[in-house]
């Protein structure tokens, strides 16, 4: 698609405040992203609470490849490719469970939970069983406050260095738990769209789209003001729908923070009259008291005052600490993406808090959500529109400032700026260039 681009020079796809449409539609670009980004960076795989006991495992993905995260007898985690060393069969098919060993269903090769070979049938027919391989291991696996990441690259920046300033999003989520830990709960919602993975990450910090894309849910909620005095689930949903109806001046009070590494978060998001900065109902007051018992009044207040909405870990993760939600973007092809939405329980908090978390996520992030469904529609329209060769370049210059700092520098911009997109592309360019 990109002429004379062999080998493909991805750095040519970003020029100032424009990006070439090939970044979204060219399968060669996607193949290069897989090699240079997804096989090198740290990607989220699962939470430690999903594998609490020895022998527990979950099937998950590291980029496009399926991997097994298992808790070994000695308590450490192993991350293995789900592919028998013999003929390549997928070994584990159930999404989670507890196993003492991994056994291939084809010829019954067995492996320990660290991937090493335990036994093969007809061992005497091999010159040396000791020379047979075990399961391929993912070279690096590391945890940050219970959140487990893996990297296909044997070397590179460590997890803490990679997360950089955005580690604070995980800190805030865990600090909100009165018991000091969070646990995955509630299963998952999975959304699919026929569009490029980057669209989701760009849209998650674009505060001009709600006025147009989400107008129908804003107006529908305005037509039903009785929802604001109904049950807690309905109130919370109506507030979330109405928040998308803010005017540009109000959105500009939101601060877009860019951090080294391509990460972005939105601060100053919650305000009276939209989504209240803090709740003051009896359930929340009970929660506040147990949180104060853990942290003391001063730290508890500071933890609750963190008013960020989406925290985006470049390239493919979004965390909302206040609502205990995480979205994992899984690129499947240049024009096909799945987003998995997961929830976390604040251990030690009242049960009703977790019920509201589930209902918030249902309403905000389900494929049937009044909000998310229009985002999915727009991603698919972008993908279809970008098939056009009438114009090769995409514009991202909204709110550009002279001498703007991007990529490996931290900066702040008003809510309606496209700085986050430019910032994400600066990181993209750096990883794609070599």
């Amino acid at each position: 698609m990109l002429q004379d681009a062999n080998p493909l020079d991805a750095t040519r796809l970003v020029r100032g405040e424009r990006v070439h449409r090939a970044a979204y539609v060219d399968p060669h670009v996607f193949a290069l992203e897989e090699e240079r980004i997804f096989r090198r960076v740290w990607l989220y795989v699962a939470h430690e609470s999903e594998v609490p006991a020895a022998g527990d495992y979950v099937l998950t993905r590291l980029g496009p490849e399926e991997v097994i995260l298992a808790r070994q007898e000695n308590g450490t985690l192993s991350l293995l490719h789900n592919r028998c060393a013999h003929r390549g069969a997928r070994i584990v098919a159930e999404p989670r469970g507890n196993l003492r060993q991994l056994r291939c269903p084809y010829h019954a090769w067995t492996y320990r939970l660290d991937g090493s070979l335990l036994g093969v049938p007809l061992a005497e027919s091999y010159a040396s069983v000791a020379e047979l391989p075990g399961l391929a291991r993912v070279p690096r696996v590391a945890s940050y406050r219970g959140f487990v990441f893996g990297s296909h690259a044997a070397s590179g920046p460590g997890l803490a260095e990679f997360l950089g300033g955005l580690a604070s999003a995980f800190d805030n989520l865990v600090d909100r738990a009165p018991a000091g830990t969070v646990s995955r709960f509630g299963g998952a919602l999975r959304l699919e769209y026929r569009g490029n993975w980057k669209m989701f990450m760009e849209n998650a910090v674009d505060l001009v789209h709600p006025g147009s894309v989400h107008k129908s849910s804003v107006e529908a909620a305005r037509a039903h003001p009785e929802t604001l005095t109904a049950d807690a689930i309905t109130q919370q949903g109506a507030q979330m729908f109405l928040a998308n109806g803010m005017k540009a001046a109000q959105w500009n009070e939101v601060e877009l923070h860019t951090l080294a590494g391509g990460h972005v978060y939105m601060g100053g998001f919650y305000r009276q009259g939209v989504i209240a900065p803090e709740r003051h109902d009896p359930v929340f007051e009970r929660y506040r008291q147990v949180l104060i018992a853990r942290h003391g009044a001063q730290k508890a207040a500071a933890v609750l005052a963190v008013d960020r909405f989406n925290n985006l870990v470049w390239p493919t993760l979004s965390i909302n600490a206040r609502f205990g939600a995480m979205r994992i973007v899984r690129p499947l092809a240049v024009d096909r993406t799945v987003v998995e939405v997961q929830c976390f329980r604040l251990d030690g908090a009242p049960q009703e808090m977790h019920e509201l978390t589930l209902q918030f996520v249902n309403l905000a992030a389900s494929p049937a959500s009044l909000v998310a469904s229009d985002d999915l529609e727009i991603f698919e329209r972008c993908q279809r529109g970008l098939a056009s060769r009438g114009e090769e370049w995409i514009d991202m210059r909204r709110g550009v400032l002279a001498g703007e700092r991007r990529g490996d520098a931290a900066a702040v911009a008003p809510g309606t700026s496209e700085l986050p997109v430019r910032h994400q592309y600066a990181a993209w360019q750096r990883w794609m260039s070599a």
Partner: protein
Amino acid sequence: MSEEVERFLLQEARLLDERRFSAWLELFADDGVYWLPTRPDQTSPHEALSLIYEPRALLAVRVARLERPDMHVQSPPSRTVHHVSAIEVDGDGADITARSALIVSEWRAGESRWFAARVLHRLRRTPPGLRIALKRVDLADSEAPHRAIAVPF
């Protein structure tokens, strides 16, 4: 009673296919709930995520949106066929349970897709007629990745 409930379910399906969403909403009791769980064995909306869990007040917002021209994911609108079968009715006259099988075909923007579900209706007899206290739709592929879902099942 069985025949009356059957007629009710078929009429409900036709309202959705004819995009008479406000009339569909009227079939719900004031405390009625529309629920699409993510897990087949889910017993409560508070134990796991749901594709939709909406008390009638929120369902009214969903319906109001379906009638707006600026709902992008329904521009152009879907054409659906809700095929209801295998209806089984239980109950004592006032509180009725109906179980059915549902196939929905949806055509929109040049593409067709299909859904299959088991459906549970808890119905209540009221002066104006039967009303839905709970409609639970268990999609066969409830845990799978789904593209945008806009027309109710």
